[in-house]
């Protein structure tokens, strides 16, 4: 029963959700809506579990004073402070002038943006150290990358402005993106879609069971 019930539920709900895609009648759409609402609630509960897991893992590391425990302490304190301030301020906690809003505008937002901005520096360093061209195919890839990289920004046209329009770097990069890149991307998309359908069918039919307990 421990395995049969989840397999049965998965099969029934899976078939039902596929049906709801094609059948707009209320016999299907009303329970479909209920299932979608249930999914939203289950995902919301996941946040509570996620938060509890972050606390458990990090408090354990802090207690054992593992390497980098001080950063974990900052994480835990920040998490608790943010949740506590939000809970105290209640509804409207993100209104202008509230402390939660201040945390979002002056801490979370700039720190998040900074992390992403650092990528520019590391990409340049990685381009110098790691982008080694060793084969003919890699040369093709590198040439396409350089053309798209320069052609995508205004300096591409500034450098090739004296050539006929068809030979401008922006025109060549547009062709690369629209023709060879697009063809390859479409093939990947179709392959992935077929894979998803096959996996979905395997789950619904009970052939794929790894989601039950990690066993096949």
């Amino acid at each position, binding site marked *: 029963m421990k395995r049969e019930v989840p397999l049965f539920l998965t099969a029934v709900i899976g078939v039902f959700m596929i049906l709801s*895609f094609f059948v707009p009648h209320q016999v299907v*759409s009303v329970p*479909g*809506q209920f299932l*979608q*609402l249930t*999914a*939203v609630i289950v*995902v*919301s509960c*996941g*946040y509570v579990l996620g938060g509890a897991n972050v606390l458990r893992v990090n408090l354990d590391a802090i207690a054992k004073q593992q390497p980098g425990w001080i950063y974990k302490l900052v994480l835990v304190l920040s998490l608790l402070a943010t949740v506590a301030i939000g809970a105290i301020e209640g*509804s*409207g906690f*993100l*209104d202008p002038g509230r402390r939660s*809003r201040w945390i*979002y*505008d002056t801490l*979370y*937002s*700039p720190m*998040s*943006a900074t*992390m*992403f901005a650092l990528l*520019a*520096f590391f*990409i*340049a*360093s990685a*381009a*110098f*150290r*790691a*982008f*080694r*061209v060793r084969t003919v195919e890699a040369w093709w890839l*590198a040439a396409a*990358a*350089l053309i798209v*990289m*320069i052609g*995508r*920004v*205004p*300096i*591409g*046209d*500034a450098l090739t402005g004296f050539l006929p329009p068809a030979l401008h770097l*922006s025109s060549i990069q*547009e062709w690369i*993106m*629209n023709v060879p*890149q*697009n063809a390859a*991307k*479409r093939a990947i*998309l179709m392959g992935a879609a077929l894979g998803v359908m096959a996996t979905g069918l395997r789950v619904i039919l009970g052939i794929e069971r790894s989601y039950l307990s990690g066993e096949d």
Partner: protein
Amino acid sequence: MSPLERLARLDRRWIFLMMGILVLIPLLWPLKMEIRPTASSRTFHRAIAAIPDGATVLMSCDYDPGSIPEMVPMTRTAMRQLWEKNCKVVVTVLWPGGPGLVDKVIEDVAVADFPGKRYGVDWVNLGYKPGNEAVMVLMGQGILTAFPNDYRGNLTRSLPIMQRARTYADFPLLISISAGYPGTKEWVQQVQARFHLPMVAGVTAVSAPEFFPYVQSGQLVGLLGGMAGAAEYEKLRNESGDASRGMDAQSLAHVFVALCIVLGNLVPRRRAGS
């Protein structure tokens, strides 16, 4: 030691410094290079221009502060174009870190350029709801069902703008400004394909290639790719916003990365373990 050998031993902090200078200089002293809009940017602009005046549009801003330079200029310009046409805008944000940012961006546009536009009448921020694709599909059953309250805690059914925005059929266009998952791809798969809602998208440069097949199939009517796409959109609107100003810096940064790739392949390689 030859110059190339010396280059091979270059401390990477010099690369960081060079990148910093190349980004900073054009921001202080713009080079004002010509921006040439691509076909997909033109169709994005045309799709919004073709919306009937006063229509209610759905706009999903699925990003967080990490993508501000690419996503925010698109959002601002799209809001200006929509409000010039007196359109009403229903905004959703399916990224947990995004609603506060998006709320501020749109509020700033309203205060600076459209002081007459009022929250709840001309626009609403429905905010974040966990569930990703499930939320998109649930909205198809009814926007009020999926979002009984907006981001600011109001009952959505009490807002004037929501009186004519109940299902996807009430929107002539979906504008997806997205920095990843969930985002444009999921909106295409779950909403455009299922509810046949015309759709345009603004995405990050790194993810733009993924969406070209959708443009070619007509599922996306228009596409803005990264800051370059945002700058092209500003150019089409005769605006000079953050994206246009950032293009000079991005141009030099791209050239520098290209140079790094070329030089990295010229310098003698160290053997493993040396």
